[in-house]
C-alpha cells in the first residue's frame, strides 16, 4: 500500500523534467550508493566463492569421468547423465524418493495445518505446552532420532513388543527388513520429526489473519469446516506454498533417515538419491564425475518442482 502511494509521485517527478535524461546523483546520493555496495559486496563475494563457484566446478566435474583422482573429460560430455538413465539403482532411488515425497509431504502439511488451527484456538488451555511438545521433535538431532526409531522398530523392539502384547500380531514383524515396512518407518520418522516444524510456520501465518474475516464468515453462517477451508486456508496460501517448497526440497535431498534407519536396505529399496550420491562418492570406488551428475539431477528436480508449486500454488500475482 505504501509503495503504491509513493510511486505516482515519483513518476510525476521524472515526468516533470523530461529534458534531462537522468539526474546526476548528488555527492551524498553517490556516497549512499557506494555504502550500499560496500555492505553487499562481502556477502555477495562469499556466496559467489562458497556457493556458485563450487556449483560451477561440480557442473564441470559432472562432465568428467575416470578413476579416483585421475579424471578426464568424457566423450561425449553428457556421458554421466546418459549413464544415470541406464542405472537401475539410481532409477530405484528416484522412485523411492518420490514415494516418500508423494505420501509424506501432503500428509505432513495437512497434519501440520490441522494442528496449527487447533492450537491457534484462543480458548485452548496449556497452549504453550502443546505447541512446545509438537515442535520439540525437530530440536532433536537427526542422527539420534533415527537411532531411536531404529531401536523402536527392531525385531525385539518396543513396537513389536507392544503389538504382540495387544495380540495384534503373533510373531515379530521385521519392520526394517521388508521394503514396504522399511519405507513406512522412514515416512513415520519424517512425520514425527518435521510436522511440528511446519506447524510453527502455519501458526505464524495464522497470527497474521485478521480475526474479523473468520468472525464474518461465522456470522454469515459458515460452519467450522467451511470457515477453515474457504477463509483460513486461502489466506494461508503463501505460507503453504513456502512449506511445500521447503518440504519438497528437503525430501528430495533426504539422507539421514535413509542412512541411519535402514542403510538403504533391504536391497537398495529404501535408499534415497542423496544416500546413493554419498555411497558413490565415499563408500564405493569413488566416481566423483558420476556423483556430480547425480547431484545436478537432484538440483534440476528441486528447481522444476519448486517452479511448478509456485505457479500452481501462488495466485497472488496472477
Amino acid at each position, binding site marked *: 500500500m505504501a509503495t503504491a502511494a509513493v510511486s505516482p509521485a515519483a513518476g510525476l517527478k521524472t515526468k516533470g523534467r523530461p529534458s534531462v535524461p537522468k539526474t546526476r546523483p548528488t555527492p551524498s546520493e553517490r556516497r549512499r550508493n*557506494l555504502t550500499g*555496495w560496500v555492505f553487499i*559486496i562481502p556477502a555477495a563475494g562469499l556466496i559467489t566463492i562458497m556457493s556458485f563457484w563450487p556449483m560451477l566446478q561440480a557442473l564441470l566435474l559432472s562432465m568428467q569421468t575416470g*578413476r579416483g*583422482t585421475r579424471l578426464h573429460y568424457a566423450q561425449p560430455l553428457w556421458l554421466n547423465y546418459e549413464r544415470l538413465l541406464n542405472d537401475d539403482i539410481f532409477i530405484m532411488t528416484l522412485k523411492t524418493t518420490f514415494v516418500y515425497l508423494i505420501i509424506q509431504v501432503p500428509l505432513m502439511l495437512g497434519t501440520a495445518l490441522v494442528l496449527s488451527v487447533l492450537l491457534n484456538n484462543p480458548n485452548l488451555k496449556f497452549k504453550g505446552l502443546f505447541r512446545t511438545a509438537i515442535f520439540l521433535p525437530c530440536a532433536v538431532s537427526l542422527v539420534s532420532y533415527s537411532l531411536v526409531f531404529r531401536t523402536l522398530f527392531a525385531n525385539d523392539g518396543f513396537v513389536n513388543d507392544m503389538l504382540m502384547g495387544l495380540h495384534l500380531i503373533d510373531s515379530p514383524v521385521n519392520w526394517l527388513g521388508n521394503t514396504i515396512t522399511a519405507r513406512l518407518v522412514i515416512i513415520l520418522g519424517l512425520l514425527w520429526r518435521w510436522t511440528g516444524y511446519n506447524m510453527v510456520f502455519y501458526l505464524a501465518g495464522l497470527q497474521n489473519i485478521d480475526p474479523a474475516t473468520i468472525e464474518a464468515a461465522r456470522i454469515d453462517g459458515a460452519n467450522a469446516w467451511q470457515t477453515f477451508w474457504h477463509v483460513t486456508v486461502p489466506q494461508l496460501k503463501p505460507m503453504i506454498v513456502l512449506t511445500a517448497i521447503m518440504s519438497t526440497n528437503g525430501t528430495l535431498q533426504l539422507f539421514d533417515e535413509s542412512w541411519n534407519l535402514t542403510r538403504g536396505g*533391504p*536391497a537398495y529399496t529404501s535408499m534415497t538419491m542423496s544416500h546413493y550420491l554419498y555411497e558413490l562418492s*565415499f563408500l564405493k*570406488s569413488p566416481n*566423483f564425475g558420476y556423483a556430480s551428475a547425480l547431484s545436478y539431477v537432484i538440483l534440476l528436480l528441486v528447481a522444476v518442482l519448486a517452479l511448478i508449486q509456485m505457479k500452481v500454488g501462488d495466485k497472488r500475482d496472477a
Partner: protein
Amino acid sequence: MSRLLTRRSALIGSLALAGAASLAACGSGSGGSGSGGSGSGDGNTLKVWCWDPAFNIYAMKEAEKVYKKDHPDFTLEIIETVWDDVQQKLTTLAQSQDFDQLPDIFLMQNMAGQKNIVNYPDIFGDFTDSGIDFSQFPESVTNYFNYDGVQYGLPFDSGTAIGAWRTDFLEQAGYTIADLTDVPWSRFIEIGKDVKSKIGKPMLSGQAGASDLIMMMIQSAGSSLFNDDGTVHISDNDVLHKAVGIYKQLVDEGILIEVNSWDEYIGSFTGEQVVGTIQGVWISGSIQTATEQSGKWAVTNVPSVDGVPGATNYTANGGSSWVISSNANAELAADFLKSTFAGSTEFYDTILPSSGAVANWIPAGKSDVYNEPVEFYGGQAVYADVVAFGAKVPSVNTGVYYYEGRDAVSAAITQVVGGADLATALKDASDTTEFAMG
C-alpha cells in the same frame, strides 16, 4: 559518469581482492598448521591415525613404549580417527592434492586396500626399502595391500575366521566341539537341525542383507567375486552359487536367524538366543563381554563348502593393516613398524592378553603367551590355534571394486531369501557390479 564508474569499479575491485586475499590467507593458514605434525617437525615424532582405543590405539601406545627403549627421543602422536573418517579424509586429500595433511602412518581396512591403492596411488608410500620380511605374514593377508608386486601395507590385526560355539548348548544336544571341527556345510546343517529340534536354538545369527558369511564361504574355497584380471566373477561363479544356496538353506531351516543391526547380532549370542557365531577372530572381544559365560565357549574352524575341489575350513573376514603415507618421515616410520609390529614378540605378548589383538606376524604365534590356555574358552589355547588357522587361509583377489560387488551380492541374498530365483538374482548382481565398474 565515467569517473564515477572507474572509481566504483576500483572500489569493487579492491574489495574483491581483499576478500580473495583474506580467503587465500585462511587456506594457507590451515594448510600450514596441518603440516606441522606430519613427520617434518623434529624428526622424532610420528603422527598416526587409527580408531579403537581398546584395540589398535592401545597397540600403538604399547608399540611406542617398545620402540622408546632404544630410541628415547621418539614420540607418537596418535589421533583417534574412525575408519569412515579415515576413508573420507583420504578421498578428500587425494582430490585436493593436499598431502601435507596426511599423517605418517594410518590404519586401513584390508578390504579397502586395493581400491585406495588404485584410485589414489599418490597417497601411499611403499615398503620396498623397509627391510621388513613379509614372508613372515600369511600371503592371504599381505595380498590385500600388494599391487603390481609392490607391498603397501603391513598387516596388523587378523581377520582369520573362527567358529565360536557354546559347548554347554552343544552338550545338551549330544555334541561336542569336535563334531563341528573340519566339517563340510552339509554336516553342519544336519547338526544344526538336530540342535534346533533338541534345544530349540538356532546355531547362528547374521545381519540381514549382509554378505559377510557368503564372503567367508567363498574365500574358504579359494574363490572371490573377481577374477585375477579384475573382471567380475559373480553369475558364472559356481562356488558363489553353492554358498548362496547354503545360506538360503540355513535361513529356511531356521539354523540361522537374520537380525537387523550389529547390536542385535552381538546380543543374539551374548544373550544366549543362538548357539554361537562364525566371524573374524576380532569378534572374540564382543563374545567375552558376557563374562558370566566364561568357560562355556570353545573355538574351532569353519565349515567347508561341499563339492568344491580344494575347499578348506579356513577363511577370513575383516582385519586391518598399517600404511605409511607418501608424505611421511618414511625411514623412521618403516623402522618403527619393523621393530614393533614386524619384529617384536615381546610387543605382541603385551597386547594380546589385554586387547585380544591376534597377530598376523607368524613368529608371534610361537611365543608362550599365545600358547597359554584361555579360561574363557574352557582352557583352550585359542590364540595359538587362530594363528595356525591364519596360515591356512586361501589367498584371494579382493579387487578394486570389492565393496560394489559385495553390496550387489548382499542385495541378491536378500532377494533369494525372499524367494527369488538364485541364478537370476546373481545375474542381476553381476550386472550391477559390472555397471558400477563402467
